[in-house]
């Protein structure tokens, strides 16, 4: 009988994760801060064409790209003369389980089946659970989803409760937990007990699966408009959405397209707090994930995350909860597209951004998600009110996460708030130094850190020096 205490299970972490993925991550390590990201990604063994074919077998991908004509007309009414870029949206809710997450799950399920695993498991409270459950059903695999769901009163966010229902209705077992990072301990125990494949959000297969999204956007823009888009806006949480999309854009030749990340600003709320848990209205796509995963990608459930935001993100834009609910309503009322609020985070950012861009620019919002009971502005705002959050019209700039949700009094009050990218880059470098326990950096480390942060070598050397780490450049 193995020791299932917290300390004992966490100590078996690497062995459990290795057995549940079939990947030996040590192959890619350099011994220093650097690791070979591209080799790791290449070792999935699937080309973009292979992935596309696998996804088509299960109805994933090839979703429509739609111009938001009425919303764009509204935008031009309120934007300064000559401004007001055209926004297009990739209607990812058309995937089988209702979000782009099917792209990620499809590759994990395919790989699990190929390697002979009997089932797959994932730790997620979001759309990804539904995607894994759906793909598992299609591939004849058993499925367990572990979700953080309730506070200590057993009160759960309606959006997460909906995800529980959806997973269960797709045939999965759902393990629900109260708030806390020890979810990972429970997840490891599930992997160990069942021997299932870890359909990690951060695996190479998952991220490779999202590359088709970026590739399709570039192709569809070329077909519709004769050129690639100027901007693609992706919601930033764990970073896989942005990373996979950006890699796909590059593979399609859209090398000049700027990739912007967007998150809901939840500054001040602690993600592991039993009290704060139900004081937020967004369970993902927020700064509580977006910032730590950008600056410390390797704290996930795999040793090296394939989702590496700062390699690809040109700017990081924050929006407020009230702005996202507002845009969700505008999308429904002006475009006839009723979609889930969380998936509209990037739309809210794009709407604010487009007001500042020339009218001939093309901005692509790269996702939508399904909506319904629990996952809609009505239950989510009603739930916020029940939990003592003030919901009213005003200037969203005055919104305080956990206290108020301010719906814009007028669409011109929508704002894109730019996060300091160099602060993110420096924070990433500090974490990389800390993880490796590095006191000096090799040329290889500097080149790696520059690629990881989309910065110059000189920037990296300066940032390292501020940390007291000397770089030995050849």
């Amino acid at each position, binding site marked *: 009988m193995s020791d299932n205490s*917290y300390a004992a299970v966490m100590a078996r972490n690497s062995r459990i994760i290795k057995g549940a993925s079939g990947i030996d991550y040590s192959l890619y390590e350099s011994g220093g801060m650097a690791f070979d990201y591209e080799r790791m990604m290449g070792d999935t063994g699937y080309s973009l064409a292979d992935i596309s074919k696998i996804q088509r077998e299960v109805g994933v991908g090839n979703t429509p790209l739609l111009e938001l004509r009425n919303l764009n007309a509204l935008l031009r009414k309120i934007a300064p003369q000559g401004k007001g870029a055209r926004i297009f949206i990739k209607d990812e809710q058309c995937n089988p389980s209702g979000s782009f997450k099917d792209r990620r799950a499809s590759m994990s399920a395919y790989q699990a089946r190929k390697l002979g695993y009997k089932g797959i498991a994932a730790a997620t409270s979001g759309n990804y659970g539904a995607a894994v459950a759906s793909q598992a059903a299609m591939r004849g695999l058993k499925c367990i989803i572990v979700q953080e769901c309730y506070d200590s009163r057993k009160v759960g966010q309606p959006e997460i409760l909906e995800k529980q229902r959806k997973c269960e209705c797709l045939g999965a077992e759902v393990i629900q937990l*109260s708030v*806390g990072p020890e979810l990972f301990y429970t997840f490891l125990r599930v992997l160990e007990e069942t021997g299932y494949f870890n359909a990690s959000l951060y695996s190479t297969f998952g991220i490779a699966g999202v590359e088709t999204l970026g590739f399709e956007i570039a192709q569809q823009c070329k077909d519709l408009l004769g050129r690639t888009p100027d901007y693609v806006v992706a919601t930033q949480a764990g970073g896989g959405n942005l990373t996979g999309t950006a890699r796909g854009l590059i593979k399609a030749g859209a090398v000049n397209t700027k990739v912007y990340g967007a998150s809901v600003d939840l500054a001040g709320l602690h993600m592991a707090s039993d009290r704060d848990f139900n004081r937020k209205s967004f369970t993902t796509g927020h700064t509580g994930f977006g910032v730590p995963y950008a600056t410390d990608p390797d704290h996930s459930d795999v040793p090296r995350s394939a989702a590496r935001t700062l390699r690809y993100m040109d700017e990081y834009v924050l929006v407020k909860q009230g702005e996202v609910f507002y845009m969700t309503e*505008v999308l429904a009322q002006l475009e006839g597209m009723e979609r889930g609020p969380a998936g509209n985070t990037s739309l809210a950012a794009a709407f604010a951004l487009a007001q500042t861009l020339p009218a001939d620019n093309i901005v692509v919002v790269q996702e939508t998600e399904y909506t319904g009971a629990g996952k809609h502005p009505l*239950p989510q705002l009603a739930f916020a009110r029940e939990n003592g959050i003030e919901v009213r019209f005003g200037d969203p700039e005055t919104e305080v996460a956990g206290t108020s949700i301010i719906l814009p009094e007028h669409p011109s009050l929508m704002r894109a708030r730019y996060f300091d990218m160099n602060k993110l880059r420096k924070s990433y470098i500090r974490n990389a130094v800390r993880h490796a326990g590095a006191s000096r950096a090799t040329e290889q480390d500097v080149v790696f850190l520059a690629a990881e942060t989309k910065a110059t070598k000189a920037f990296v050397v300066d940032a390292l020096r501020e940390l007291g780490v000397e770089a030995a450049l050849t």
Partner: protein
Amino acid sequence: MSNSAKKGDWVQIHQIVLTPGERTGKIPEETKKVPLELWVKGFIQSDAAVGDTVEVVTVTGRAVSGSLAAVNPAYAYGFGDEYVPELLRIGSQARSILEEGGEQ
């Protein structure tokens, strides 16, 4: 909802995974004060009343024990217990900006 279950019924069980003293140190005080709890559903293996310690078999075939929390648990969320009237204003304002070319 019934307070008792017959063998074979679909139920939800509850477990304490970690007591407050067993929780990781890296969490806020209010979280550290409460246990890490778990709920899962399955087919109950014996007749029991809510609160009894029971064993279930989940849909993946796992045997799990815990205290009986609910029998035939329903999905109780919906579109909110009270309508949020603010939402009505958003669409009409956006349309009026579009149609009249003016601002409200």
